[in-house]
């Protein structure tokens, strides 16, 4: 039963990655310019070089053979060269992805820690002032464009008060060897050099981007948790429990929470895809050296191999996160396993 479900999901994952790779392959033909140099990242200058590339990329065979060769190169880690830097796109992605992931994970943690309890509180005080306060605050946060929020925070906390730096991951004073790419972990691995000052500095750099990035998912989680709690609180078994004489606290903690938080788990996983997208904007504003900023820069520079590779990496990540969220949800909630496909 569960195995069947997992297999079906894995099948879907395979299908999605296949479609994604077909799409990525085809955009090198959709982009303006010579498809061969779009694929390889080598602006072909002379005849010998060109024919060498044609041989390597099987350019004179039909599209299917080319696509198979493309898949083979993807698995070997040969994602072409970036027009802008001349380096391998894959190595760029490996360098940059951890920074984005780090930011997104911290933002996700904050949004869970703030959002879920706020949603529970809102439903516990349904239609009373805490609920109204939480509701209107989320409405405001939900409607706030992420780049404007970032600019407002920069105006207040960086320019006026000077509490937090407005760009980068780390002060230029400190030099931390990059092992994992996650800055906090790297500093911890290096044994908190500079008497822990580097760690504090990294935290100060992280604060504003994390808050900005966490805003939208937090409001989504608050609204979702509240709705889910209200739906559960309206059901018959809650009425039965209340008729048995349980007080409100017991009712919520022992009966409502467990049932209401199940869909929230899935929602948390789905937030990851939104986070990665919003992270692109946040990175641009805060000059965060992540994959989003690099991707946007590549679009400015018409760096087609980089756009191709970046899109594939980001989309693959989003798809993986979605599938993992669904799988964990299914592991916890047996009822959801019977649902057919076509639901995300």
């Amino acid at each position, binding site marked *: 039963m569960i195995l069947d479900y997992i297999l079906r999901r894995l099948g*879907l994952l395979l*299908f*999605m990655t296949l*479609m*994604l790779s077909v799409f990525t392959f085809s*955009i090198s033909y*959709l*982009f*303006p310019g010579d498809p061969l140099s779009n694929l390889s990242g080598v602006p072909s200058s002379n005849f010998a070089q060109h024919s060498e590339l044609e041989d390597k990329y099987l350019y004179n065979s039909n599209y299917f053979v080319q696509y198979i060769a493309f898949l083979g190169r993807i698995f070997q880690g040969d994602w072409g060269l970036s027009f802008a830097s001349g380096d391998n796109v894959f190595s760029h992605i490996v360098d940059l992805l951890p920074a984005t992931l780090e930011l997104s994970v911290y933002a996700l943690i904050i949004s869970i820690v703030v959002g879920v309890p706020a949603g529970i509180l809102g439903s516990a005080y349904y239609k009373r002032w805490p609920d109204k306060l939480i509701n*209107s605050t989320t*409405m*405001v946060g*939900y*409607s*706030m*464009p*992420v*780049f*404007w929020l970032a*600019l*407002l925070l*920069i*105006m207040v906390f960086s*320019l006026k008060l000077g509490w937090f730096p407005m760009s980068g991951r780390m002060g230029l004073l400190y030099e931390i060897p990059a092992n994992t790419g996650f800055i906090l972990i790297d500093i911890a691995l290096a044994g908190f050099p500079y008497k822990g000052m580097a760690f504090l500095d990294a935290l100060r750099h992280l604060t504003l981007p994390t808050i900005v990035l966490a805003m939208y998912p937090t409001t989504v989680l608050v609204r979702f948790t509240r709705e889910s709690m209200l739906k559960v609180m*309206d059901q018959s078994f809650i009425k039965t429990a209340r008729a048995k004489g349980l007080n409100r606290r017991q009712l919520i903690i022992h009966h409502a929470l467990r049932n209401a938080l199940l869909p929230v788990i899935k929602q948390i996983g789905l937030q990851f*895809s*939104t986070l*990665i*997208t*919003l992270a*692109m*904007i946040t990175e*641009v504003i805060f000059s965060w050296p992540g994959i989003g900023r690099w*991707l*946007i820069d590549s*679009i*400015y520079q018409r760096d087609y191999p980089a*756009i191709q590779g970046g*899109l594939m990496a*980001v*989309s693959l990540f*989003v*798809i993986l996160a*979605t599938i993992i969220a669904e799988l964990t949800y299914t592991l916890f909630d047996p009822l959801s396993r019977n649902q057919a*496909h*076509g639901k*995300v």
Partner: protein
Amino acid sequence: MAKFNIFSEESNKSPLARFWRKFKNNHPALVGLWIFVAFALLAASAPLLAPYGVNQQHSDALLIPPSWREMGDVRFILGTDDLGRDVLSRLMNGATYTFGLSVVAALITTIIGVLVGTFAGISRGIRSSFLNHLLDITLSIPSLLLAIIIIAILGPGLMNTVWAIILALLPQFIHSIRNLIVDELNKDYITAFRLDGASNWHIISRGIFPNIYEHIVVIFTMALSTAILDISALGFLKLGAQPPTTEWGAILAENLGLIYLAPWTVALPGVLLFLAVLSTNLVGDGLRQVLKARKAD
């Protein structure tokens, strides 16, 4: 919860009138609706209302703060930017681009979404399975990322942004419409209608649509708020509208360098953007609450 009618008065008002009555009682939603209407009017008539031309420069009045400040000038109510252009006129014209184009994009999405969603809802077998799988893939990618992908192919520009946003909003829209149709198809009154010999077209147009058009409006407001956010975000990233187009996100990006000198040129477009999204969300929330309350009746 069991509900009792204390007064046995019959309400024979039309569904729309009852809908409006419930909506009216939700004051935040009503305020949202007024702001929404104001934006719509502004978007339609901005060039007539604006005091100055969009790119009219006043070389004697550079970087004048809003008129309520000491250094302000009453000729320029919201101040001027570094080229001496009136901020108020630019922002008013921005409504046409950001708000107006978003409405157009959301409307086109609605038309295509309803058509394809209905088709997906009534189709069975391999066609439906294929559509659903395709939706699964695109749904897991957020609309802004999808729009950025499409922009990467089409190249930056305002019209490309609109197409990208329409394409990016569609999967979510089709999915919601399809779910609505499938839910409705499983109900008894549709089965009865079918047994009476109604054709598919009759079932859709006479049976289902009168019952779901309000839901479509709710989905439309959601699409609209996403469209506004996406259009301005792309403008801000310099992938959408290019300066000197007065799209609010583009104005914000253009004035980013003045954030120290002239914070109002950065703050004001953001305020308008926020108000536009907020009013749309308030209306959408109000509509949803009325629909929910009516279900409970």
